[in-house]
């Protein structure tokens, strides 16, 4: 919140497009020329109604998907040209995912779920277990390590998911509607955890359709509509300011408007 501009850029989207072809001749422009820049330590929200392309945007940022056009840099590396395996490796190491529906593996215990990302990084079992215990403690779920996900409440599951997202000490946490399946009380607990992680220096990118949530916690909000960034707002000294840069950019880059069929 202090000197954002001098901080290291950790994720950068440069004029990214993601088009799908549905059926014979319907072209879906899920992401249509988005540019985005996330600095280390930012709490960024990607805001938009359903169909605005925010989920696709998050998949691209999280390197789950590759763009049709444009470049995505994760810590300076262009991930749009990487192979599946390299993407997986980078994903596991640098990004921690938190999903709306928690996405824990039902056949594994809490502890095993938290330790799983470390397994894919080749960390030995002993260390995995110790570190996973530490993360469970952090989300105040120590004592539940042998429970299976279906034995936990929604809030607890999401906290397990947060612990898992921290497993490989990633620089970026990517949260897709983290409170979407939770009541407001447990949702707040989860958001407070995320805020805590952010204060500890982690970059957080959150996708949400809830403008209040976005503006309450994030210091930068990207407002998406129809696959394009409509506006960017920044929180500065408790006030919300609309970013002027984008308006300038838009005027120069947008040539013609084509609506999705």
């Amino acid at each position, binding site marked *: 919140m202090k000197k954002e501009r001098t901080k290291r850029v950790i994720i950068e989207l440069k004029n990214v497009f993601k088009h799908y072809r549905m059926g014979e001749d319907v072209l879906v422009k899920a992401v249509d020329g988005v540019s985005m820049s996330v600095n280390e330590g930012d709490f960024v929200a990607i805001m938009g109604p359903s169909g605005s392309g925010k989920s696709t945007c998050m998949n691209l940022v999280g390197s789950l998907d590759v763009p049709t056009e444009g470049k995505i840099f994760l810590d300076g590396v262009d991930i749009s040209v990487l192979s599946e395996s390299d993407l997986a490796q980078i994903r596991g190491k640098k990004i921690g995912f938190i999903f709306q529906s928690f996405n824990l593996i039902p056949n594994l215990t809490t502890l095993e779920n938290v330790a799983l990302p470390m*397994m894919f990084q080749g960390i030995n079992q002993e260390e995995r277990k110790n570190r996973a215990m530490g993360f469970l403690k952090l989300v105040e779920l120590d004592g539940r390590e042998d429970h299976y996900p279906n034995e936990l409440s929604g809030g607890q599951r999401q906290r397990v998911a947060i612990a898992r997202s921290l497993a490989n000490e990633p620089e970026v946490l990517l949260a897709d509607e983290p409170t979407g399946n939770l009541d407001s009380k447990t949702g707040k607990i989860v958001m407070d955890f995320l805020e805590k992680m952010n204060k500890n220096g982690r970059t957080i990118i959150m996708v949400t359709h809830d403008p209040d949530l976005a503006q309450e916690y994030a210091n930068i909000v990207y407002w998406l509509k129809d696959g394009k960034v409509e506006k960017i707002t920044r929180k500065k000294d408790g006030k919300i300011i609309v970013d002027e840069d984008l308006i300038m950019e838009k005027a120069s880059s947008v040539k013609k408007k084509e609506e999705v069929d």
Partner: protein
Amino acid sequence: MISDYFLLSFRNLKHRGVRSWLTLLGIFIGVMAVVALIGLGAGLKTAINSQFGISSTELITVQAGGITMGPPGSGAVSPITVSDLRVISNVNNVDLAIGRNIGTLKLELRDGTIEFVSAGSLPKGSEEKDFVYDSFGSEIMYGFLLSGGEMNEVVLGYGFSKEADAGYDVEVGDKIFLNDEDFKVKGIMDKTGSFIMDYLVLMNSDPLNDLLDYGDDLSIILVRLKDKDLMDKTKLDIEKALRKYRDVDIGDEDFVVSTPAASLKTVNSILDGVQIFIAIIALVSVFIGIIGIVNTMGTSVVERRKDIGIMKSIGAKNSDIFWQFFIEAGLLGFVGGLIGVIFGTLISVFGVYGINYQFGTELVPAIDFFLISISLFGSFCVGALAGIVPAMNAANQNPVDALRG
């Protein structure tokens, strides 16, 4: 890392439903058939050989043969007779040839039990008698063997004894009736394991002749050789001599000369046929097992699509997913094989135990740990092989689509 895959696969297996385990039936049956077959193999052979009365004594048997064509009586086979016996006795390398008659008699016990039994004649002369006893394959259990020209004494097979528990409970000294003539039981033989031998009544040829009126006819001629290595040649010599004496052409013989080797060959070829049949069943079962595993793994990939997406999102490479499913399929096969090995071993242990009990043998089930290891390893490989395509399918899931479930 490999151990991690095993761990993950194992956890997934633990949560599988009954449906998945049912698909293992094919591999289970296949492995069980092979293990049981090999475990029983030797015992099976012994049992069948003893049933057919093929003892280790190496002798040649001659019986009337040829097939009676047409209605009974029209193509009567000319029986072998005492004169054939004399011809055979003069063939080179023949040490001793004896003729025996075997017929059916009505047996009546003191308590009124009536049964039809086989009775075998004993030749005259003690050397000749010893030859028959030798070929019998067992010793006297109670009383004495017939040694001279006893006219109203018999020796019974083990089946009539109290020990056999077959409901006869005959003792040495008992009076029995054969075709309404009374005889005394002089001895009871020990167990041979053959149903034919154990329920045989042994008596001298004269009293049997009196009862059944064989005249000069013989049921069977047993030939002992001087040099057993010349068995095949002697067999040909006997055939030649009999053809000449009985005036028949090659191919038209109305007698059969057989050696134990030939009988063994017949029995073993039947056994081989059975083994091939079981092997084919095993093969088909394994093939069905492969299809079962392909099917259940394919379903599993669809069911766990979301898990695949999750794992990919937290850093699993395609190869990580592939190995997990591959090993899981292998473990499925392994479990099928393991159950098969256990049941196959049980079958061979109990089977051999049953054979020992029935035939008084002391066989040990052939439990081959090398074979078991090979079976288990093979089952794993078969499972893994079946898992290749589903595992590749799992590995190639697009993470975004997979996450949607």
